[in-house]
């Protein structure tokens, strides 16, 4: 039983470019949440997807968008990248009606914007 998988593991982009990060949730989970973790900080909630809809959103600009597919996998898109977007992007999966109890995090995607 695979856990949460994210791809790619590392990524280097140039300021102004766009990036897409991918996440496959743990088997049996239907909800995907995305977090941004800057170096030395705690994860910051970006948004959560359930039933292919954005259900909750944190304090992130519209440059951050997402999508959830029928198989529950999800993408995070960031447009017009800024240097400050450099961070570890974490995906967490869970079952919607149990909240985040036992939320499983993926290994993350390390994004560097130069």
């Amino acid at each position, binding site marked *: 039983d695979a856990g949460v998988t994210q791809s790619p593991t590392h990524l280097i982009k140039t300021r102004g470019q766009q990036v897409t990060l991918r996440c496959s949730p743990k088997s049996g989970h239907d909800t995907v*949440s995305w*977090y941004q973790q800057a170096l030395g*900080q*705690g*994860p*910051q*909630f970006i948004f*959560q997807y359930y039933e292919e809809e954005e*259900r*909750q959103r*944190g*304090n992130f600009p519209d440059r951050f968008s997402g999508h959830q597919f029928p198989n529950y996998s999800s993408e995070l898109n960031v447009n017009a990248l800024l240097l400050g977007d450099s961070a570890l992007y*974490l995906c*967490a999966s869970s079952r*919607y009606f149990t*909240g*985040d*109890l*036992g*939320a*499983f*995090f*993926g*290994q*993350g995607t390390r994004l560097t914007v130069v």
Partner: protein
Amino acid sequence: GQQVMQIPQYQHVQEGEDFTTYCNSSTTLSNIQWYKQRPGGHPVFLIQLVKSGEVKKQKRLTFQFGEAKKNSSLHITATQTTDVGTYFCAGRSGANNLFFGTGTRLTVIP
């Protein structure tokens, strides 16, 4: 907005000493979770506390949720080198998303 603060930010202990990290929320929480993140790794879920005054134990780890459901603590007895990492609390206050604390980075000196 909701804020979750943790103290201390860093803690260095000699192996065998005890360790405690404290978590304080600006709002009342419906529940609180604790995670451990090893250097270079991702957060790993440890436990969730729901009830006011709840205390849960996992071997050498003791978790407590305050009576007012605005604070929590994690206590590790007789630390080991395998306890090294950053410990985060994460609280939810009604909404279905978690607010992570600032974390406490634990270093254990052998």
